[in-house]
């Protein structure tokens, strides 16, 4: 979980950087999208990314179901939030919400773009596609909810990955936690701004 988690965090950095170009310069956003969509190395990286996502999901589901079996008789009164954060106990649920969002997200952008590339050899304008997709209110709301699920998933997952890999030593733990909190808030916030900005016609 740790290794795939860190890889997916690395992907989020790239995704977030490219997306934030929309706010700065639409031209450079289109260039970056073109590079990611056509470069051979990027296609290879994309296969790796999908493998990482699938592995993360399979591991996560196995972990969740195996662990549930380890307490056949439950407690009458559970500790709840007295001893741990709700989101650290709900990674499976948050991950499932993100997965549902991800299916919709790929169906909106990645799918149509690759389909067009295969059938006509031409890319579609992702900027125009964003404008069209984010003109509907329900889509904007689903994207916001998806990003909130992502934020809570990262709030636990970022630090947890480093702990699992044995890297969160006493010295680095506060730094890793700090960066984790900042990352979990800033990155989903930038993602949330995307649909809102298009819906409100800010870009």
């Amino acid at each position, binding site marked *: 979980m740790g290794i795939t988690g860190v890889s997916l965090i690395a992907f989020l950095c790239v995704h977030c950087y490219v997306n934030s170009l929309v706010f700065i310069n639409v031209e450079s956003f289109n260039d970056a999208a073109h590079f990611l969509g056509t470069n051979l190395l990027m296609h290879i990286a994309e296969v790796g990314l999908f493998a990482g996502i699938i592995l993360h999901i399979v591991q996560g589901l196995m972990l969740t179901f195996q*662990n549930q079996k380890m307490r056949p008789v439950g407690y009458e009164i559970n500790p709840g939030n007295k001893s741990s954060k709700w989101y650290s106990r709900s990674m499976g649920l948050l991950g499932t919400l993100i997965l549902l969002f991800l299916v919709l997200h790929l169906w909106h952008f990645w799918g149509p773009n690759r389909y067009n590339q295969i059938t006509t050899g031409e890319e579609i304008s992702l900027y125009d596609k964003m404008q069209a997709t984010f003109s509907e209110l329900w889509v904007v709301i689903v994207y916001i909810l998806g990003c909130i699920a992502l934020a809570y998933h990262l709030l636990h997952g970022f630090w947890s990955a480093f702990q699992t890999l044995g890297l969160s030593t006493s010295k680095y733990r506060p730094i890793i936690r700090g960066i984790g909190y900042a990352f979990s808030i800033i990155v989903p916030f930038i993602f949330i701004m995307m649909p809102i900005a298009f819906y409100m016609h800010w870009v």
Partner: protein
Amino acid sequence: MEHYNMNLTLKVWRQKNAQDKGGFETYQVKDISSEMSFLEMFDVLNEQLINEGKEPITFDHDCREGICGACSMHINGQAHGPWAQTTTCQLHMRAYKDGDTIVVEPWRAKAFPVIKDLMVDRRAFDRIIQAGGYISVDTGNAQDANNLPINKDKADESFAAAACIGCGACVASCKNSSAMLFLSAKVAHLALLPQGEPERMSRVTNMVDQMDKEGFGSCTNTEACEAECPKGISVQNIRRLNSEYIRSVFSGDDK
């Protein structure tokens, strides 16, 4: 602190044996002193049950000084009750008010089956220790103090890990019933000392293998174990265990 007496309602898990389904029984106790320990309150209840000709409640206890790790009650949803870094025997009745209802359950985990009432079988922990939680040395006479130079910070960290009393509160509190905090404390306190060095690699793999065999869950870093541990064992030990484990996997040593 002011002394007072209280009347309480207790909802206690009763189970005849490992095969019995078990269920909650409700009891009333009267005039409980605020200066009693939680287990003394249970002694009063058991006296009452014996006088009524009923079967007393079985529960684990030994030293009643907070150092042996025998007591193991899950009280109102928390292992060892509401006080931080306190075992059940050191929890005192001043934590409660007159008229309170207290729900007492055994540790719940597949690897800790109930033997009777509130007593669970924690021999899985013994088997994990037997798999590697020791050092193989000829004992002989005690060495001179400071014969082996050990860094002060390492010695302190090792000592803090060695404070684990093996009560199982970490397993009871973990949503996955994971024994990682217990195991990590046992691995860390030896890995930090020169005496633990020769068996460092085989110890961690053997103990982790045994833990998996016993049917404990895996760690998802919720840190509930640290919050409920009566000895304040830090999850930093789990960090150390993970790094010891990764190191042993890549060391290429035969077990």
